[in-house]
């Protein structure tokens, strides 16, 4: 019985070009367009920046270092301790790190141009630069005194940003904040017994590199939108199924089916199961095409199938729920509201258009457990190499939504002998 309903549903979808366009063609086109157009945002690619940083060097690095070494030599400590302290000083040169390791690194050298100035530029002259960095006299000496001799005064660099170039300014600010934090951390380390050389090696790479917080594989734009669009357009299967079911009522096909002694719940089970099948097939076709054309490949296919199946079941729940409302209200308004308003909202909250992590806060929390967001989040994590156990909360959220929808549909569905 149910097999007949599924077969019929598949034939109907297959023979309706409009449905095929909505369910298969549109998401695929959007994956391609959005992946290409918004790729730089998702991929974290640097925008085309040309930062000019004027550096006024007033500090005598070698002189400062020499003064500190002399001071160490005069300390009443053993020769071994003196040698270790002097090596520590020589191995960590804060300005060398900033000017040579950070600004000259491959991450920054293309976007930050360092221009050395003798004197402070005039206000008009300063506008030519994204920022002016002044390294005060005695900075190096002050740094070592603070680090090794517990002198309280903290050395600082003076950075003046050009307010008319906000983006460049914010990049410089971030770089210096990060540098300053690391220097402050380092300066407390000798007393904790940590080898400063180890820290220095990680310092320059930390300032210049981008890492995902979780250390998992980052997701590129096409993968992001393949998942986002597939999950969004999956919900249209529910809208279409509900519209088709209402047509069956309007054309008296539903009455004909009831006259064949098919119980009303079985009719709705037919809608539920056939929607699951259509949604599952839709996902596999879309992700299959994405794999072939855009190279979106799942690291664990079994996990992908588990998530896809559970999402398809949830979409089936939506189809039955909307159909029940349509049948009760004798109108297609529930379908229209769902397809025109709710799906875009579900998609937006779920992060189909932009990563919700960029919005953050409570919105990100809500998104994780919303019908679309749970699915998207589960897919992303699988794509990043997480296991099913890591996405159990998302899968639970999807399952609870499904049960809730089915329960409501059961309550709403028409009863035997009611108006048809």
């Amino acid at each position, binding site marked *: 019985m149910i097999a007949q309903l599924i077969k*019929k549903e598949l034939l109907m979808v297959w023979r309706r070009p409009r449905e095929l366009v909505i369910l298969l063609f549109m998401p695929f086109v959007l994956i391609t367009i959005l992946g290409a157009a918004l790729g730089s945002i998702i991929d974290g690619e640097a925008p085309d920046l040309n930062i000019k940083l004027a550096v006024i060097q007033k500090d005598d690095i070698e002189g400062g270092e020499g003064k500190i070494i002399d001071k160490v030599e005069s300390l009443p400590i053993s020769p071994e301790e003196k040698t270790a302290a002097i090596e520590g000083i020589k191995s960590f040169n804060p300005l060398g790190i900033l000017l040579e390791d950070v600004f000259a690194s491959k991450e920054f050298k293309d976007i930050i141009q360092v221009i050395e100035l003798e004197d402070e530029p005039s206000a008009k002259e300063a506008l030519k630069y994204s920022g002016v960095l002044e390294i005060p006299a005695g900075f190096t000496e002050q740094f070592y005194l603070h680090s090794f001799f517990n002198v309280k005064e903290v050395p600082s660099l003076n950075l003046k940003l050009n307010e008319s170039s906000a983006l460049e300014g914010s990049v410089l600010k971030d770089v210096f904040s990060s540098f300053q934090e690391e220097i402050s951390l380092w300066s407390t380390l000798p007393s904790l017994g940590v080898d400063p050389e180890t820290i220095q090696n990680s310092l320059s790479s930390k300032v210049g590199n981008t890492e995902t917080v979780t250390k998992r594989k980052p997701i590129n734009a096409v993968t992001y939108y393949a998942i986002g669009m597939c999950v969004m357009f999956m919900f249209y299967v529910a809208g279409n199924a509900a519209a088709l079911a209402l047509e069956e009522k*309007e054309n008296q096909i539903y009455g004909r089916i009831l006259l064949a002694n098919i119980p009303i719940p079985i009719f709705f089970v037919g809608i539920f199961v056939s929607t699951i099948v259509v949604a599952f097939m839709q996902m596999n076709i879309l992700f299959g095409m994405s794999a072939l054309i855009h190279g979106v490949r799942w690291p664990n296919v079994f996990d992908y199938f588990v998530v896809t199946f559970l999402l398809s079941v949830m979409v089936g729940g939506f189809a039955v729920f909307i159909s029940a409302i349509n049948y009760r209200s004798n109108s297609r308004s529930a379908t229209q509201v769902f397809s025109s308003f709710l799906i875009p909202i579900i998609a937006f909250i779920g992060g189909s258009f932009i990563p919700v992590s960029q919005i953050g806060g409570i919105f990100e929390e809500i998104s994780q457990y919303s019908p679309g967001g749970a699915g998207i989040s589960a897919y992303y994590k699988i794509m990043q190499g997480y296991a099913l156990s890591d996405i159990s909360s998302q899968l639970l959220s999807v399952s609870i939504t499904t049960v809730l929808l089915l329960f409501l549909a059961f309550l709403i569905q028409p009863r035997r002998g009611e108006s048809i």
Partner: protein
Amino acid sequence: MLEVVDLSKHFKNKKAVKGVNLYLEKGETVGLLGPNGAGKSTTISLISSLINPTSGDVRLKNESIVKKPEKIRNILGVVPQDIALYMDLTAEENLKFFGRIHRMKKKELQSKVDEILEIIGLTERKKELVKTFSGGMKRRLNIGVALLHEPELIIMDEPTVGIDPQSRNYILETVKRLNTEKNITVLYTSHYMEEVEYLCDRIYIMDHGEVIAAGTKEEIKSILSAEQSIAMRVDILKGEYLQLLQALPNVKSISVQDPAITLIVPKKVNILKDLFKLAEETKTNIISVHIETPTLEDVFLHLTGRQLRD
């Protein structure tokens, strides 16, 4: 075979069916006539167990089907007023789908589908999508689906609405053949009086949710046996002439389908003289006058005050 006893159905603000009584004997073809909104379709939905009555009962072979709808559903075929078919499936796929949901076995189904396609004359077009069919072909398939599971009783709700005369004749012949050859009992509703006259042994006339007349064609016509029908045509119908006609003491009812006027008047009353006199007074040219025995249409008009297709 089937008995409807004091059947009523009340919706929120409307009494759609009010105490309807009717019966169908095995092998009969019974007509259910009534203008739009008379309650025919609701009565059909009640008889076929799709909706529950507010009061009353429908009894099949002396058993109530209100509590056990399966009883009637197993032997009932319904041809709804709408084309209850999947437009994106072929004729054959539609028949197979409905056959399968009637729990027909695969082997039995194929031969039955072929037989039905033959009866409804669509064998050659069985692989084509229904949406490509003409209105008449869709109507024929609509009937075919109702015949699949070999029902003993078939209810047809205006099965010839909106189709060409050729298809209409084909359908009428098919219904007649099913009734005579397979002894299928038929409850037939229509807007076309001539269809009911051609097919039905007995007729029920409904209006405002009630049965207002019932009997054989002859019995119904005998309601106006003491009357005669005068059908005349005028060149230009004038309101003044119509008012004067209505005022004549012997005119029982009058219907107008410009430029035709039909009057029901008692037999043995010579009204022609008055008709011509009033026409002269109002300067109305009478083109033709026919004196006829009242038809079912006239009876319907007399009883409901409305044309069947109003």
